[in-house]
Every structure is written in structure tokens, then in C-alpha cells.
């Protein structure tokens, strides 16, 4: 039976004992020591800190034990099944961590001369080529720090494209389907465009009539995830990209669901112009409880001049890699330095492990697992798949507990809390917004059938309990986690977001 640790929730600050120390610095050389007081006197007294910050005073063991206990109150892919839809929580191979922890990967300053970083540059150069190959794009930047940052980079490229053609005055709208991730419209606003939302069809795909009605000379482009958030491949994708291209709009591919299609179909061949990848999804880099990730962006050849600088190039004559700053219409910089290198290296390692055949197989097995789960879940009383019930899905699907909720008052949220007690991470709930009582499920390719079956059994159990009126176990859940249901309303009403605020209450 699953039972998470329930350590007392004392804060590291509350473990502090004045006089204890977890660190000793290296001793100064006598010559340096002699200069310290003089150096301090150069700083005006009113700019010197009078009171030390109230950081905890604890020993090494206390630190180690505190955070070890915290880790025991956390749950990762290594702990168990994590079918969090749209997040692609697959196994993060340990060999990638080994590679990323090598000293000659980590201990490199970004301003070192190029001839001292040829290894890192080669990794970046090849990774960019491979991502281009997988997506059918001609140029790739590795700089974006996350998926949303990739979206930002992509739309800034789109913006600069219209600006260079002196069309930015009219080109001020981006079309986004109603099933899109929230990052899409948020990015549109950050880049100074207006979001035009179009409704989905009954089958969950883009409504072509609605699209045609929304496309005008103001259309700067469209953002689309394909397969979409419902796990459905847009059958009319070529028509969609044509409609946008006819008004000189650009097509943006949100790569959140790239895990479904590797080796099978490429965004470039569908007519997309700009693509982002989530390395922390498709390419198995660990998500670290919220990041860091990496969101490289690929573009078609005529958009290469717009990429952020620098990219990495290879000079055959010099036989060396170098930073290429010559992108005529570059959008400039979107962050400092060149990208989240340790994440890039992990993805590089992952691609080496699987290779061309392996990556194609990854997508096949991700889709197989998702379709198997979908088939089994729709058989359970109270659940349905409102979009794409009869056709096959790709790597994920959105289950609705609408019927269950209507008939038993057990909601998607209740289900997710009950699943916690079975030692399973719940799916994404209440997204996409167009599915009532949504449970968005993505098993990924790395889970064995036995684990997937455990999840299906747990859902069956929920249904049985709900329909037989034995709902206390569901409504009282979770009990096996380190805390029970949480008072979010209180958290938002009286925000306490630091120890300083807590002390002052």
C-alpha cells in the first residue's frame, strides 16, 4: 500500500540555533587578510549592511536531513506513474544525468574563448541539426529556456518577419484555437499582438469555417499544437496552413505534443514555419519540480536570418565550431548566453541512446499506450471521451467525468485526490477548458502495461465506489500523502509567501 512520509512540517528557519554553522570558507592569505579592513573602509558606511540576513544557522547534517525529508514528501517519475497529460512525464534516463554532471560540461564559463569550448559547441551544433531533421526545419536556436520561452522566441521572429516587410501595422492578430495552452495567448500578448480565439469542431479539430471567417489581412499567423491538446491529429492541417499562408501569415507549431509523431510526420512537411520543442518533455530531460527545461525553436530556411544570436556554426576550413552572429534580421537576444546547456546535453545523450529507430519507436509506443488506456477507460461507467471517442488518439487523450459528476457528484478533482491514495500521480484536470470534468491522460512510452492496468483498475474502483454511494473514501482523500486536501482559498486570501511575512503576522 502506498504511504508517503509525513514528517513534521517544521521550517529550516525553525531549526536554526545561533552559533551553528554549515560552512567554512577558505582561509585568506595573510597579504589578502591585511587588505580586508582597508578594502571595507572604501565602502561608505551608509551602504554597508548593519544586520546580517536571518538565514538559518544549521549544521551540514541538519541541512541534509531537512531536505532529505522534504524529498520523501515529494513524488517524481522515479516514484511512480505520472500520467500528467501534456507534460510527457517519461522516464528520465540516468545516463543523461551522468553526462550532465561531467566536470568538462559543468565547469565552463560562457565567455571562455571558442577554442576552449569546442566540445560544448559540437554538442550544440549536432543537437540543433538533429532537431531540425526531426521537425523538417532548416535552422534551430537552442537558446529558449522553456516551452513558453520558445513560443516567445517564435512569435518575436514572426513579428520581426512582418516588421521587415513593413507589414506590422496591419499584421496584428494571431489566431489561437480555444483548446490551446494558456501560454499561447499569453505569449501573443507579450509580443504585442491580439489573440483571436476560434472554436473547435465537434470532433475537437479546427473549425475550418470559423478559421476562414477569422482570417483577414490582419492575420499575422496562427499557433497550433498538432496533435492537438485533445490528442487528435488535425486531418485538415494542410488546408489550415494554406489558408494562413495565403494572407502571408506564418504557422507556429507548439511542440508540446511532439512525442506522438517522431519519425512519422514532420511539422515542416505539414506547412509549419516555426516550431518549438520541449526538451523536458519529448527528450526526457528531468523537469526538476518546475524546471529548468529547454525550448529550442526551429524555423524554415527563409526565417533563419531572424533567429536570436548567436547560433552555432561549423567552419570546414578551420575545422572548428564557432558562434555565428551574422543573422541579418535577428530578433537580438532573448536571454543571456546560449541556452540551458546541461539540459541540451541531456537531450543530446537521450537521442544518442535511442537513435533514429528508437525515437520512432518511442512515438509508436507512446501512442499505443495512450490508445490502450483510452479504450479501457471509456469502458468504465461514468467516463467518456467527448472528442475522438471512435477514432484513435495520438499520445494522449482527454477523458471526461461529466456523467459521473452528474450522477454521483464525484468530480474530476475528487478523482484526482483519490488516485493519490493509490500511489498514482493524477492526470491533468480541468484542461483543456472545452471538456467538462476533464482528465487529460498521457501515459508515455516508458510505462509497462502492468502499471497502466493499475491505473485503469483505480479508475474502475472510483466508479464503483461512486455509483454504490460509498463516496467517503473518495471525498476524504487523500490520506496517504504527507498532507490532506489543502485550503487554497485561505492561501490566496491571506498570502503568506515568505518567512518574513509569517514572522510579522
Amino acid at each position: 500500500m502506498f504511504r508517503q512520509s509525513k514528517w513534521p512540517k517544521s521550517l529550516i528557519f525553525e531549526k536554526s540555533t545561533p552559533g551553528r554553522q554549515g560552512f567554512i570558507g577558505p582561509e585568506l592569505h595573510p597579504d589578502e587578510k591585511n587588505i580586508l579592513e582597508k578594502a571595507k573602509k572604501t565602502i561608505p558606511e551608509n551602504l554597508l549592511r548593519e544586520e546580517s540576513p536571518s538565514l538559518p544557522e544549521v549544521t551540514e547534517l541538519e541541512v541534509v536531513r531537512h531536505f532529505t525529508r522534504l524529498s520523501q514528501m515529494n513524488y517524481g517519475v522515479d516514484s511512480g506513474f505520472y500520467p500528467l497529460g501534456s507534460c510527457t512525464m517519461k522516464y528520465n534516463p540516468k545516463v543523461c544525468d551522468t553526462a550532465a554532471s561531467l566536470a568538462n560540461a559543468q565547469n565552463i564559463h560562457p565567455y571562455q574563448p571558442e577554442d576552449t569550448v569546442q566540445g560544448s559547441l559540437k554538442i550544440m551544433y549536432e543537437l540543433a541539426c538533429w532537431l531540425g531533421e526531426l521537425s523538417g526545419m532548416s535552422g534551430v536556436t537552442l537558446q529558449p529556456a522553456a516551452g513558453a520561452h520558445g513560443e516567445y522566441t517564435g512569435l518575436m521572429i514572426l513579428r520581426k518577419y512582418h516588421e521587415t516587410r513593413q507589414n506590422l501595422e496591419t499584421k496584428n492578430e494571431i489566431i489561437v484555437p480555444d483548446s490551446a495552452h494558456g501560454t499561447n495567448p499569453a505569449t501573443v500578448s507579450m509580443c504585442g499582438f491580439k489573440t483571436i480565439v476560434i472554436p473547435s469542431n465537434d470532433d475537437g479539430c479546427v473549425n475550418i469555417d470559423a478559421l476562414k471567417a477569422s482570417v483577414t489581412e490582419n492575420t499575422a499567423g496562427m499557433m497550433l499544437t498538432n496533435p492537438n491538446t485533445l490528442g487528435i491529429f488535425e486531418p485538415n492541417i494542410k488546408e489550415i496552413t494554406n489558408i494562413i499562408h495565403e494572407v502571408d501569415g506564418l504557422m507556429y507549431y507548439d511542440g508540446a505534443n511532439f512525442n506522438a509523431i517522431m519519425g512519422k510526420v514532420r511539422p515542416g512537411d505539414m506547412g509549419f514555419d516555426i516550431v518549438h520543442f520541449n526538451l523536458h518533455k519529448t527528450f526526457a530531460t528531468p523537469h526538476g519540480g518546475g524546471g529548468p527545461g529547454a525550448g529550442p525553436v526551429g524555423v524554415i530556411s527563409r526565417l533563419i536570418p531572424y533567429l536570436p544570436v548567436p547560433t552555432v556554426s561549423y567552419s570546414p576550413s578551420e575545422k572548428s565550431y564557432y558562434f555565428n552572429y551574422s543573422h541579418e534580421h535577428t530578433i537580438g537576444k532573448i536571454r543571456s548566453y546560449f541556452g540551458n546547456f546541461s539540459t541540451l546535453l541531456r537531450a543530446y545523450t537521450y537521442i544518442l541512446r535511442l537513435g533514429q529507430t528508437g525515437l520512432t519507436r518511442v512515438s509508436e509506443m507512446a501512442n499505443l499506450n495512450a490508445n490502450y488506456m483510452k479504450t479501457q477507460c471509456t469502458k468504465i461507467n461514468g467516463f467518456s471521451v467527448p472528442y475522438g471517442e471512435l477514432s484513435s488518439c495520438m499520445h494522449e487523450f482527454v477523458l471526461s467525468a461529466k456523467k459521473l459528476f452528474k450522477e454521483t457528484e464525484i468530480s474530476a478533482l475528487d478523482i484526482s485526490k483519490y488516485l493519490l491514495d493509490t500511489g498514482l500521480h493524477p492526470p491533468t484536470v480541468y484542461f483543456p477548458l472545452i471538456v467538462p470534468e476533464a482528465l487529460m491522460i498521457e501515459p508515455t512510452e516508458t510505462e509497462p502495461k502492468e502499471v497502466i492496468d493499475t491505473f485503469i483498475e483505480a479508475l474502475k474502483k472510483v466508479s464503483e465506489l461512486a455509483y454504490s454511494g460509498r463516496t467517503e473514501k473518495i471525498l476524504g482523500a487523500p490520506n496517504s500523502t504527507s498532507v490532506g486536501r489543502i485550503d487554497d482559498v485561505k492561501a490566496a486570501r491571506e498570502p503568506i509567501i515568505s518567512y518574513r511575512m509569517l514572522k510579522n503576522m
Partner: protein
Amino acid sequence: MHSNKHLTHPFLPQTESQIQTMLKTMKISSIEDLYSGIPKELRFKGKLKLPKPHSELETLRKIQSILEKNKTIDNLNSYLGAGIYPHFIPSVVPSIVNRSEFLTSYTPYAPEISQGMLQGLWEYQSMIAEITQLDLVNSSMYDFATALGEAALMSTRATKKRVLLVPEYLQPEKFSTLVTYTTGPNIKIVQYPCNKQSGQADLDKLISIVERNINQISGIYIENPNFWGVIEEQIIDVGELAHTQNALFIIGFDPISLGLLKSPGELGADIAIGDGQSLGLPMNFGGPLLGLFAVKNDKKLVRSMPGRIIGLTTEKRSDNRAFTMTLQTREQHIRRERATSNICTNNALCALASTVYLSLIGPKGLKTLAEISLAKSHFLAQNLSEIDGIQSPHYSGPFFKEFVFTLDSPSHTKEFENFLKTKNIIPGFPLYKEFSDLNASYLVSVTETTTNSDIKQFLDSIHDFFSTSGGK
């Protein structure tokens, strides 16, 4: 089109017979049927130009052989800083951060099963609040440069004004990132200069810039220490100037310096930003880093903050403490096009690393580290000043762990660097490549990882250069 029927791989668990069972359950005959929804003409028919699958052993061999072509900072006598610093990382930090319950978890959307990460991030917010003396901290941004971009957007949201004043003397890529971030919302960036002697903000010129932009200024940004490593002696006046304009006062800081220097909160900041890389993160060739973002406790400001925020609350059924993501109505997944930012994935694990780091070093350690850098940089600056042919420090203002030195003869930079290169020395960040009025200057950074014998070797080599290579 090719289904790799017999591929077995350690990451792919389903056996051939399980696959058949699953297909049967779905009443289809092959995996290929799952792709029937994709129009045939779009299907990829070629062979991807990707490497073949490698075993773990082959993979590691290959990666090691590639990375061997790098030269690590451990094998160089390097004075590079300028935003990223080679600080020592205690063994406890990677040991905790690599615990896979943290490493392999997602954003804590299911808070009951993710209390460990949530508490860790709440403690992160708390520690940054302590060092900055500002109450509100988000649970991380990507890096310093994007934190500046977000601070610019926030100051316009909070003040409804569109002119941001920033120093001319910023790290070039930070400035370039700021320009990108302010393009969409059409915020005007106006740069103010420094005094060429002191290397500090030229207050008179700043005041006249303010006067030319009355009622339009959303914020004034300043760094302390600034990009030259110099401490801004009139920083409090700059803050007051911002507040007379009802503009936000934004301070960029180096977290290690706060063991010694007055905090942004005490200096009057509304927003404080910085990079947490110094707090236990490897340099990693420039990423991932840790964007620090702290804000004064003000109801209006908290609602316009970007990024995720962790709150302390209780269980519903008891008064037991519990942590959860909060104030999410600012964020993209709820507010969509009206969100304060599009940020979703951030740098949570880096934030956790800095929490472990700050827990270890404590208030005394932070002070010690700040003093070590101060003493060592002053030791170096003073010894450089004794060499004919070098002006050190270039600016007269007080400095912390970085300072600028300048060769008297601009024509010698290439020779100087090449000579030092033969001794495995990198003399610092070549400012002359980015700032035309500093035509033979280097920005030098010194931390606790720089030993006294490193410094002596550096000084000896410079002496050699000027005496033997005709440097004069």
C-alpha cells in the same frame, strides 16, 4: 512508415505479446493503424539523418571524447565573471538536488503529493526575502536578463507608464534581452550614463533625463554593484528620484554581495532582481541559471508580479501546515491573454539548489564569502596598479568582487591576451569589444575559488609580458 517490430530497448517495456494483447483490446491489427488519422501524403517516408542507437557504454564514451575538447575553468587561471561566477559548490548541494524525488517531479500541480518541493520553494522565497529584505519573491525566473525584461513589463503594468531608465553600462546581452522584451508592449528604454571617473551613475545627467520624461517614467533601474563592479554611492538618491516620479525603483544585485552591502529593500527598491547562479549552481556554459525576482510588500504590486508563487496555508480539515501554488489568477493557465507573463516552466530545481546552499552557508558564511571576494579583488587591483602600463582600478568608485583595469596602450590587447594564453590565463572579460570608450579594458572577477598563488602567477605573467614582450 517503418514499424520497428523487434526493437528492444531498456527504456521501452512492452513485450511483443503485450503489444499484441493491447492491439487486440483496441480491435486493431497493427500499430500502424494508430496513424491512420494522418493524411498519407504528409507522412514522412524517408530515413531521418540521426545517429544509430548507442548502448550506455558507447554513449558515455562518445560524450566523454567530445567533451574532452573543452578546457574547464579548473585548468585555467581565469578572471572571467561579468554575470557568471565560479563559486565553490559544497557537496551537499548536488547530493540533495539530484535526489530523484525532486529531480524527476513536475511542477507541483498536485500539492498533497508534492509538499517537499513546495516547501523547498517556499523556503527559497523566504531566503531571498531575507537577503533582499523584500517580502514577496516568486519561485524563479530563467535568468537575470529575462528577470530584467519581466521587471520592465511589470513596472509598466503597475504604473501604466512606458519609459524605463537604465544604465548605459549594462552587460550587453542583458541590455539586448531587455530591448527584445520591451518591443511587444512598446516600452521606451532610455539610457543614462556613468561618471567617467567614478564609474557610478551620473546623477545630474539622470535628473535631466527624468525632467525630459516627466509623467512618463515607469521605472528606474540601477545595479549595485554595477557592471563595472563599482558600488553606486548615490543609489539612495536614485531611488528617491524614482519615487518622486511615482516610478518603480528596480535594483539589480549580486546575492553574495548582500553579506556585506545594504540590501535592495533597505535601499528603497520596489523590485529587486539578480542571478542566483552564484548560490550553488555550476556555470554550465551559461545555463541553466536562476532569475531572482523580489518585490516590496504592496497589494498592488503582488497582483502584477510574474511567475509562480508558493503560499503557506493549512489542510482543509486541520490547522496542519501545507504549501500550495497561490495567486494563480495572475498566471497564463487561468488569465490567458491577460496574464502577467507567459512563464510556465521556470528554474525550480535551481531555486532549490540555492536554498540548500543558503541553508548551509548561513548568515556568517554569506558575510565570509563577500569578505573573501572583497579582499582578494582589492589585493589584485592594488598589485596591478603597481605595474607600469596598467591603470588599475580604472574607476575610482568603491568596488566589490569585480573591477576594471586598462592597458595604457590599446594596440597591445591582442598581444597581451595571446601572451597570457600561453600561460593558461584569461585576464577577464574584454570590455573593449563591447564598449568603444574602454578601448583596452578588462573586467576582472575574483571569488573564493581564486587562490593567492593564482593571483601571483597572473601578476608575474603580466610583469613578464611588459618586460620581455615589448609590452611597452
